[in-house]
Structures are given as structure tokens and as C-alpha cells.
């Protein structure tokens, strides 16, 4: 149904190495308007790296990334605000885009942190800060949103509400979303396309197909497959401790 929509981002066989050590390689996917693409995988599997490749943060990459939009909102996995820099939520909201007070208020309201507008960023709790980060990314009405574990540290109730919000944004604003998440329930229920990473793409496709994939089960364990259904299949490779692949 989304096929007629504009392609926002195309990643072709991309990878990146630092000091000759490959962080991630051979990643291909595309994001269209109104589509949510999710990256899953264990720690250190190259999820954030893949997002950074897609955003053009690395100077040298293998493969190709084509961006068809400049209106990008990014929620990084880690961001530390130096205490030497006095900055309020209000100042942070207009970091990369000029916004009116109304636009700022609306965005902060959507993520439930309007009351923190005049607070110093360094005084926020982890969850509050994540909500501000999300508000900032959506306030500029981006065409492409890249969310790297956007709800880390957010309370249980807030987490559900924020994922609901993300889903709404993709539908209403026709915004393409690249999401990194550990919450497999969310991933499988709200996503259009899943890439399962472990230094390379282990498997990819629509959620109901991915959960049936042997490699998915191998990475996340049998219980993860129960999220949708349980299937038996044979494995064509295993992963050694350092993430390299042993063919069977």
C-alpha cells in the first residue's frame, strides 16, 4: 500500500570499518514515506553504526547511501551535554531549526514535557531528556526520522505512549522512520520492515517473516519467536564470540 510513496533513503551494500576492523557490512535497505524500518540485534551488532551510516555521519564508508530529503530529525543513542554549557530545553529545541514558540510548545506537549520548557537540560532526568530529544526531532516536521533507542529510560506507561506517538507521526506526517529498538513486541507490531543485524544483515523482511527466520531465533532465543508464532527451521550459520560467522 505504501509502494507509491516517495523513497526517502536508499542504503546499498553499505558498511564501515574503523582501524581495519569492520563494524558492520553489506547493509541494504530503503525507507519510503510513511514507513517504519526497524533495526534489531544484540549489543554491538552495528545498529547505531548503521543508523549513522544512513545519516552520513561517517566520512568514509563502503557502499552507497542516497538521501532524497534534507529534512531529517535525529535522536542519537547517547548525547551528553557538557555542564560548561548553560542551556535550557527551550534553547535546545531550536538547535538546528528556527521554531516559533507555538511549534516548540506543541512538540513538547506531544511528548508530555511542556512544563520543562524553561528548565536547564542538565537538571533533567534520563527519561525527561529522552522526551525532549524526541520532541526536538519531531518539532522540525522532518520527512525522515532516525530514532536510536528513543525511549531508553522512559517509564513503562510513557514508553507505550511514545511508541504510539511515533506510529502516529509516521502515519499523519507521512514521515519515514528508521527505528532502533530492543522492544521486540513494539518492533513486531508497529514496523513495516525489520533488519536483524549482527555485524551484517542476518535476515530482513516484514515482521511476520522475520520472526520465522532461523537466524532471528538464533540471535534472540526461542522465546523471541513466540512474539508472533513459533516455527522450526534449520540454521545455515552460527555466530562465534566475536561476531564472525561460522558456516555449517
Amino acid at each position: 500500500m505504501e509502494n507509491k510513496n516517495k523513497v526517502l533513503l536508499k542504503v546499498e551494500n553499505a558498511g564501515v570499518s574503523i582501524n581495519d576492523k569492520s563494524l558492520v557490512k553489506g547493509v541494504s535497505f530503503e525507507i519510503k514515506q510513511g514507513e517504519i524500518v526497524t533495526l534489531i540485534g544484540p549489543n554491538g551488532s552495528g545498529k547505531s553504526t548503521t543508523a549513522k551510516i544512513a545519516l552520513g555521519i561517517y566520512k568514509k564508508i563502503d557502499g552507497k547511501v542516497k538521501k532524497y530529503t534534507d529534512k531529517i530529525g535525529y535522536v542519537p543513542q547517547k548525547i551528553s551535554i557538557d555542564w560548561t554549557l548553560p542551556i535550557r530545553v527551550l534553547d535546545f529545541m531550536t538547535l538546528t531549526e528556527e521554531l516559533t514558540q507555538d511549534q516548540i510548545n506543541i512538540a513538547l506537549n506531544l511528548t508530555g514535557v511542556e512544563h520543562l520548557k524553561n528548565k536547564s537540560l542538565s537538571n533533567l532526568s534520563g527519561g525527561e531528556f529522552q522526551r525532549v530529544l524526541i520532541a526536538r526531532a519531531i518539532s522540525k516536521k522532518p520527512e525522515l526520522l532516525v530514532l536510536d533507542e528513543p525511549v531508553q529510560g522512559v517509564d513503562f506507561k510513557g514508553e507505550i505512549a511514545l511508541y504510539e506517538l511515533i506510529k502516529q507521526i509516521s502515519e499523519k506526517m507521512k514521515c519515514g522512520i528508521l527505528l532502533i529498538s530492543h522492544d521486540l513486541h513494539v518492533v513486531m507490531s508497529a514496523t513495516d520492515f525489520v533488519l536483524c543485524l549482527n555485524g551484517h544483515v542476518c535476515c530482513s523482511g516484514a515482521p511476520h517473516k522475520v520472526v520465522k527466520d532461523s537466524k532471528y531465533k538464533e540471535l534472540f532465543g526461542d522465546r523471541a519467536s513466540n512474539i508472533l508464532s513459533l516455527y522450526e527451521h534449520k540454521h545455515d550459520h552460527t555466530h562465534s564470540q566475536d561476531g564472525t560467522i561460522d558456516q555449517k
Partner: protein
Amino acid sequence: MLNDFFIRALLAGIGIALITGPIGCFVIWRRLSFFAGTLAHSALLGVTMALVFELNIAFSVFLISAVLAIFLLQLQTKTNLPNDALLGLLAHSSLAIGLVIIGFLTTIRFDVMGLLFGDILAVSQSDLLLIWGGGVFILIILKIIWKPLFASTINYDLAKAEGMNPDRYNAIFTILMAAIIAISIKIVGLLLITGMLIIPAALARNISNNPLQMVILSTIGGLLSILIGLFSSLEFNTASGPSIITAALILFCFSLLKFKKYSELKK
């Protein structure tokens, strides 16, 4: 009581405070104080080069600082040494080379003390023109690049992802720092120019809660330091640079007091 030279020194000082206020904030935010110090140390080499090749002093200092900054970037890619070690290496070797060359310049009379600590007697009409002309230029550039530079200061990845090109603005900022050192060594002196960049910004940090406020307070702090410093330099016949920096330090101590009271009130 006010002589021509003193009016010129005041005007020069005010010009410098207006530039070091905002630039100093970025120096603190970006943790570049050691880098600024390195550039300032290399200014001595710049001055001796100017004497040897009969160049304009400010131009020569600017050139050497810029070369040093590029050299540093090269070194960073070639070795695994930490940044502070590289900066120390460059700062002291350029200072040493500058002093060695001065030793050879026996025919030229040369006021090393004035160069190191500033000399308000030495400010000429053309210096004033340079400070104000260069200062306005630096501030206009800073105003233009403010947003992307600020975003890059907060977070490199975020700025880059959202199309800000942080590398370009980091480079422009380095050039601005070299320029500000070049135009202000004469009045503050090369050993103390870093103090003029850092101390007013540091005192502003103690009493501000947003970036713009910090820039304004830093500029005011710088202006007060210049005024108090220059008047006491005239009164007590002390070198202008150390007097200005001492005044800045006293103001900084006051900002600590005020900060304490302020936070007590908040509790």
C-alpha cells in the same frame, strides 16, 4: 589625567573585550582553552617572523597560528598521542623557536616583555583600526555561523545528521581564534590572551542559565576587566596585560560569591 595613549589603549581594550566575550564562551564550551594557549604561544614565533621578513605583525601572527592549527590536525591523524600532549609539544616548541630566533636578531631592538605581557603605550592608530576592523569582521562571521557552530558544539553527530556540516564550522572557528589572538597580543600580551578568553567566560558561566546570557555577561565581564585593569595599570604603573587579567580574576571571585547566594536562595 587621560592622555592620548591611554584613550587609545581604552578603545583597543574595549574592542578586544567585545570580541573575546562571545569567542571565549565557545572556547570554554568546546574545551579549547589549552588550544587557545597553544596558538597564543606560537604568536611569539609569528612576531619574530614578522621582524625577520618585515611583515605586518598581526598578519604574521595570524599566519603562524593558522599553520600551527593545520599542523595539529595533521599530527592528530598521524600519532596516537593524546591531544593535550600534542598541544604542549606545539606550544612550547613554537615558543622556543621564536625565542631562539630573537637571539639571532641582535640588530633589532625588541621589547620582549611588552610582547609577553602587553604594553598600553604601544597602541597606535593603526592598531586601533586593526582591532576594530578585525573585531567587527570576526563578530559578523560569528553571528553568521552561530547556529551551526553552536549545534556542532552541542553534539557533532546531531549537527552532521541534520545537515549542519560541523567540520566546516569547526575549521572556521579555529581561524577566528587565530585572528583574535593576532589582533589582541599587543595590548594583553601573548602569555595572557588565553586568560582574557577564558576568565570572563568562566565568570559568566557561574551566573547564567542560557547560552545568550552567558555571552552577554562574558562580554560585560571582559569590558569591566579591561576598564579596571587599564586604570590600575595607569595608576600603579604595572604592565597592562597582568593588570587586566588580575581584574578579571577578582570579578571571577565575585561571580562565585554571587553564585553561592543565588543557589542558597533557590533552596
